[in-house]
């Protein structure tokens, strides 16, 4: 490791790996650091679904020859693993009724194996000559005359190491250490924090292998707070012909124990019979601090990419796109002295959560907290046999859900006038109300 590089990238998730490999491919001298010892290892909860809905965060991703092809930006990411094709996305009430969005032809989403993608990206980064430091934390980045000073600390050392570079990238994820130290972080609004516990389960007796399931309502967890999700996917070492496992996870506001809620759901929840013989083959977790997006993700020569700049998540696929775009913008900046604007404009225009009202809209599709379980069972009993065209994207699914429920509103008004009022009130709830509930 040297004291001076052209580029320092903090964080080797999809965003950081893409930046590092692209910058090195263009001849830059790049240092990439991560706190992990094994970069491709994924112990952070993530459904790793490829969201194939056109125009997701400004990009349309197709599976072409098993690889991920990014149509609008125009690049391909190699993938040598397997996909699960999900054709339905259902909201499931505690009584077992559903509201289903479906797309039989293209699928609603395609879970893949993130380890495989990261392993291949890492290999490319190494081939392109990126210097990689594992078990090393990025602590702070500071704009200095003509570049950036980045403070690093090895997991095994008490001392800070200073590295200078022309451009530094903060790609250290949703709870970004680097971003927290920047002025632009002060403009963000904080809503609250969630923690997630997730188990990968084998041997489940499960009826929805073709679906992404979001359990809504209070009856799925012991304390009635938090949400359970289920998604089939392949383990990193799965061979063709192997069965997928089921990733079941619980997200709950800080203060509510997510692991305890998950354990309770599997043992005593309304669908516990699916899990009587289940074996836990892997565990993951994560913490999400909910902040509004960074609207201008460049401060001096420090560029923020991926989840580090976003509200909750960009998705892996979009972390790759923003990484790619940020790298191109940085190369142009180095070349002409003007380039960052390309990236920040694209970010603001493509990432829906930068737009007014989008955060509220997305959250309304998940937290139906005002509606009681009994009412939910009633509403979903009306939609149970129907399928509405849609995908899993949190930016578009809430609209489909709203339309589905509202298509029955006359009947609900007649049979359950109080419920109809609650439903209408729900679509007005603020982001804070939903996160806190």
């Amino acid at each position: 490791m040297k004291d001076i590089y052209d580029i320092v990238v903090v964080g080797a998730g999809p965003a950081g790996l893409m930046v590092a490999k692209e910058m090195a491919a263009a001849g830059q001298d790049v240092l990439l650091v991560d706190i992990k010892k094994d970069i491709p290892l994924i112990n952070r909860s993530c459904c790793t679904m490829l969201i194939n809905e056109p125009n997701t965060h400004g990009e349309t991703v197709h599976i072409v020859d098993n690889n991920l092809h990014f149509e609008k930006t125009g690049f391909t990411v190699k993938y040598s693993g397997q996909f699960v094709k999900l054709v339905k996305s259902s909201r499931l009430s505690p009584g077992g009724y559903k509201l289903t969005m479906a797309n039989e032809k293209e699928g609603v989403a395609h879970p893949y194996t993130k380890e495989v993608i990261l392993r291949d990206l890492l290999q490319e980064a190494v081939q392109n000559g990126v210097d990689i430091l594992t078990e090393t934390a990025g602590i702070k980045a500071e704009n200095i005359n003509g570049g950036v000073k980045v403070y690093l600390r090895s997991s095994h050392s008490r001392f800070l190491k200073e590295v200078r570079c022309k451009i530094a990238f903060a790609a250290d994820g949703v709870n970004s250490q680097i971003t927290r130290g920047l002025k632009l972080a002060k403009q963000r609004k904080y809503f609250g924090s969630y923690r997630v516990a997730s188990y990968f389960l084998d041997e489940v007796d499960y009826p929805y292998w073709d679906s992404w399931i979001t359990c809504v309502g209070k009856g799925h967890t012991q304390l009635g707070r938090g949400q359970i999700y289920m998604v089939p996917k392949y383990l990193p070492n799965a061979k063709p012909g192997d069965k997928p496992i089921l990733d079941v996870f619980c997200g709950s506001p800080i203060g509510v124990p997510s692991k305890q809620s998950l354990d309770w759901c599997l043992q005593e929840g309304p669908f516990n019979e699916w899990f009587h013989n289940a074996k836990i083959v892997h565990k993951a977790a994560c913490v999400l601090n909910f902040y509004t997006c960074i609207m201008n993700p460049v401060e001096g020569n420090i560029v923020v990419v991926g989840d580090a700049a976003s509200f909750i998540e960009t998705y892996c696929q979009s972390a790759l796109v923003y990484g790619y775009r940020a790298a191109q913008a940085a190369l142009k900046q180095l070349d002409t002295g003007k380039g960052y604007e390309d990236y920040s404009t694209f970010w603001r225009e493509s990432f829906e959560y930068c737009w007014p009202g989008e955060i509220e809209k997305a959250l309304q599709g998940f937290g139906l907290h005002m509606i009681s379980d009994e009412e939910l069972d009633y509403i979903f009993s009306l939609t149970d046999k129907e399928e509405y065209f849609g995908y899993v994207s949190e930016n578009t699914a809430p609209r489909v859900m709203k339309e589905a429920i509202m298509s029955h509103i006359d009947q609900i008004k007649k049979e359950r006038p109080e419920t109809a009022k609650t439903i209408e009130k729900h679509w007005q709830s603020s982001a804070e109300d939903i996160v806190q509930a």
Partner: protein
Amino acid sequence: MVVDREECVGCGACVNLCPRLAIRFIDNKSYIDQVSCIECGTCRESCGVEAIYAGCRFPDIVLLNFANNPYADDTTTI
């Protein structure tokens, strides 16, 4: 605080949440530097799998603090 490394799943979340930068990521799991930790509890509250617990680090010193308290009123009983 102390990390139960059997329970820690290695998500890495607590590392960036510690206000004292006391948490190291070693072998893909967390480890808390006992000298830097101020027992603020942030990491314990945040861990998704409840792998962090409060271990009283200096039991002898705690006792000593009570014994040496100059404001102690000897006649007060609990």
